[in-house]
Each structure stands twice: as C-alpha cells, then as structure tokens.
C-alpha cells in the first residue's frame, strides 16, 4: 500500500528530503483551513526535495481562496499538467470540470465524500449500538447517509474522478462495494467538525500565519465518553488505518501533542 503524508505548506521547511522520502507521496495543503493552501512555489520546493510532484490538497473554499486556487491551477496546467488535485469543495470541482477537464487527476477529498454521505453518531453514553464487528464502538460511528449509489457512480464519471478519500469505514465499504474508483484512507484522525472559528486564533481570522502548526489538543468532557481532538480549525476523533484490499493509499496526518495549550480570544469571540 502506498504511504502518503499530509504536509502543510507552512511546515515544508521543517521536513527535509530524507523525512519526506520516507513516504511514497506528499499531499501538500490542508483539507480544513483556507490559510494553509498550497502555492506553486510550495509545489516546486517539495518537488525539489522529493523529485516527485506532490498531490495538491484543497479545502472548503471561500471566494478569495477559490480565486487563489484558480491562479494555482492556471500555473499548474502549464507547468505540471496531470498533477493530482484533492478536491474538497464542490465549487472547485465544478471549476476544474469547466476549465481543465482531463488536465488534472481529480480526487474527491474527505469533505466531498462526507458531503454526500455524512457520518452518523450514536449519542455519548448510548448502549444502543454495536460497532461494525459487533463490539462496543470506540467512536460511536453508527452509519452514513444514503445518497443513492447510482447517482454517486454517475457523479464520479461526470467529473472524471479517479480516486476518493475517506476516514470512515462505512464510506470506504460504500465506495469499495459499488465503484471501481481508487480509495485512500486517512488516519489517525477522523473528522468530527469543521469551523472557521479557530481555537488557535480565537475566532475567525482573515490573515493567518498558521500558529497551529502540527499541534494536536486532546480534549475531554464529562459529557463525552471518548476523547476529542482539536487540530487547526477542525475537531476529530482517533481512528485506525483500515486494511482493505481496495485501499491502495494510506494518508497519514502528522501531529505533535500540545497539552499546555491556552486558548486565544480575539475581539469577535465570546468564549475562552
């Protein structure tokens, strides 16, 4: 199985060639934050280190962030045709299909696969459900939405999608059992929520130098019977890499534990 690493552009200087070459693929960008999207200079720098064109990773895009992606795609179409783009925004997918169909390899990121099929969770403390293997679930995931398979198959074909990504076993099985698309599995963090109200900036910010870095905050509450994790501007639970014959890429998100974190508060936020 191919090993891939998610690399935030702000941290590319931290990783040397040797560290990056431990992985078959570098996925450059961020799936959750508009302030950590790749530039062509980031792409060129990583390519210089690894000798390979990195996979470019997008997130849910605001209008200015989409405009920056449009400029990046224009440059890539000339200098890096065929690059793989992980699309996490329906608008970006629509844009690529209109302007660059066939010029890039399109992967549906985990925000997109969750867009069609949100995961469902049992209530904390619930005794009602059993996990996929009949055991007490660790993260209380009980299923996913029911977007019709024939629609999904048509959608993948219409947008020339070659690969899908997920961090959820139910979604993995849905695509594995019903499509012939390649599948990436993300670990060790499974998405629980996305926000623009970032705990590292104390709220919504229009300009950010990514002080979050790779910091991972472990959160506990007496109301939740599993730990929650905060990384960047998203919340997660832990998951494990699922070994399935159809998963041909394991995507690892690096993190550094940060137990002494004190929340920032900006002028727009009420809590701290």
């Amino acid at each position, binding site marked *: 199985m191919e090993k891939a690493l998610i690399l935030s552009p702000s941290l590319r200087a931290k990783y040397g060639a040797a560290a990056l070459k431990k992985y078959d693929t570098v996925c450059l960008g961020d799936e959750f934050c508009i302030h950590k999207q790749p530039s062509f200079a980031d792409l060129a720098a990583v390519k210089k280190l690894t000798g390979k064109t990195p996979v470019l990773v997008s997130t849910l895009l*605001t209008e200015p962030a989409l405009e920056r992606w449009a400029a990046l795609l224009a440059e890539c179409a000339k200098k890096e045709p065929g690059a793989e783009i992980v699309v996490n925004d329906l608008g970006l997918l629509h844009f690529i299909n209109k302007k660059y169909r066939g010029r890039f390899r399109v992967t549906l990121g985990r925000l997109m696969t969750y867009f069609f099929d949100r995961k469902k969770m049992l209530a904390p403390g619930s005794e009602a459900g059993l996990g996929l293997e009949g055991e007490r679930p660790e993260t209380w995931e009980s299923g996913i939405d029911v977007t019709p398979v024939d629609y999904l198959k048509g959608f993948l074909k219409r947008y020339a999608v070659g690969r899908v990504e997920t961090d959820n076993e139910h979604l993995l099985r849905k695509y594995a059992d019903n499509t012939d698309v390649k599948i990436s599995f993300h670990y060790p963090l499974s998405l629980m*929520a996305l926000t623009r109200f970032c705990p590292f900036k104390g709220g919504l910010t*229009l300009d950010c130098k990514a002080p979050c870095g790779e910091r991972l905050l472990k959160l506990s509450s007496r*109301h939740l019977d599993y730990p929650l994790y905060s990384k960047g501007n998203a919340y997660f639970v832990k998951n494990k890499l699922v070994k399935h014959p159809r998963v041909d890429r394991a995507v690892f998100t690096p993190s550094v534990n940060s137990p002494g974190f004190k929340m920032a508060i900006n002028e727009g936020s009420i*809590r701290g």
Partner: protein
Amino acid sequence: MRITIGVKSSEEAGYFLRNGADEIYFSLSAARGHRTAAFSSEADLIAAIRLARRLRRKTMLALNAVYPRENYPAILDHARRLTDKGLDGVIVRDPALLEYFADHDYRPYLVASVLCACFNSQTMEFYRDLGVRRFTLNSQVMPADAARMMAALPGVETVIFVPCLCLEANIEPYCFFPYPGGPSGACLHACTLRYKCGANAFRMVDTNLYYQADLLYDFHKLGVEWLKVSRQPNTPKLMAEFKVAVFLNRLLERGLGRAAFAASVVELIERLDMNKFGPSYDFKPFPGSAR
C-alpha cells in the same frame, strides 16, 4: 429584508403570517427535512399553504435531507401535490434529489439550504445549473466574500439566519456530533460543552453579540433579501425569536447606524434572556393549544 420563518402547524402559520412574516417554510414529519420540527399531517400543511395564499405570502417546503432512493417517488408526489395547492418553492440540499426532480419534469422555485455549503460563486453556479435561484448563506461566510459571490451571479436571491439567534460554531454539513432532537437521542450540543485540555479549560470558539450584530448589519447593507428564523419544537421560544427578528429588521430598515444597531442588539438580547424559554429542542406547544 423579508422574513421567512419555519413552522410546524397551521396554527403557528396563522400567527406568524398575521404578524409580519413574508414567508413560512415547513416539512411534513413523514418526509422530514434537516430539522425535527414538522407538520404531522399533510392536510394541516395544505391549510397553512391556503392561508398564506389568501394573505399573499409565500410558502416553501423543506426537503433538505438526504433521502433513500426508494423514497424519491413518494417525496416527488408529496411536493407535486403541495405545488398544485399553491406551494411557492422547495428548499433542497441533495444534488441527487434535484436531478431526480428535473428528470421527472418537476421544476419548482428552488432554494439552496445552508447544508449545500455554498462558500463561493462556483458552488452557487453548480446549484444554479440545477435550477436553484435562492441561496442560504452560511453564517461563516463573511459579508465581503458574499458580496463577490453575489456579484458573480446577479439575479439570485440570498438568505441569512439571524446571527444573534442562530450562529452555529461549526460548519454544516461538516459537523457530525449528535444533536438534541436528532435521531441519536443526544441531549447536549458538543459545541456548547466545557472541555479540559490538559489542566486548562477549553471551549469551541463562538462569537459575541457585537460580532453577530455587525454581521447582520453588513449583510443587510449588502442587499441580502431574506432573514430566516429557524423552525424548532419550542413554539414560545420561536415566537420570541420572531419578535426579535421583526424588531431588528425594523431598526435596519430605518437606517440605524452600525454602532447604534450593535448596541441595540446587545441590549435587546441581554434583556430578553432567551434562555428563559428553555432549549429550542424541547417541545412546547403553541400557547393555549390543546396539544
């Protein structure tokens, strides 16, 4: 701005339509939308549509969930029956259902739910190509970005929630925590819990009333057409929220300045103490109702 409010009975519909609502929206419990508050019978729902037509107000059916394929024919029949009775449009989120509607030549006025995650003009264009003509803006879309989105697609209508009544800490549809009133039976919103991070306290970041007031002011200045009050099981609280929406809209229409408007929002919300009505997901009937 015009006010659209979610209702769950013809009794509620009558109250809001006669007190200043320009539009009501709703679901039937058998074909529920994203939220749990819904009409229990189609006959009652049709009575609400008829009343709205008599009062020359609009009605929207919320079909903003993801439904099993086998339910599509029944959902289409339901929507068609209501359209025949005078329904003005349908609130949607699922592109699969939209394509099914188009394939079956059902082309109502369509409104994109907040669950469509329209954060840029290209996503709006995707939905516009499927027939959507009104877009619900997520509260985490900034007014400056919304201005560029709206400029890129002239002619579409936009909706915002009243930020001081409903501004979720996490972005729909990417929040997977169980929620009160949802199918899991959860009794708390994860975004309101107190967490520990090591020895320190941690809360999911939310916004304060000044921020929320500025957001509403800026969206009004931008020309957003619709102000939305979410449906909920707690009718007394819904009535209080409606009054807040009407009052704040009146202040905006009278041209109050930004700072004075923010001060008014803060004073009003703090004085009213909406918590006294209890959680929005607690079922509380229409005052004086037999139910």
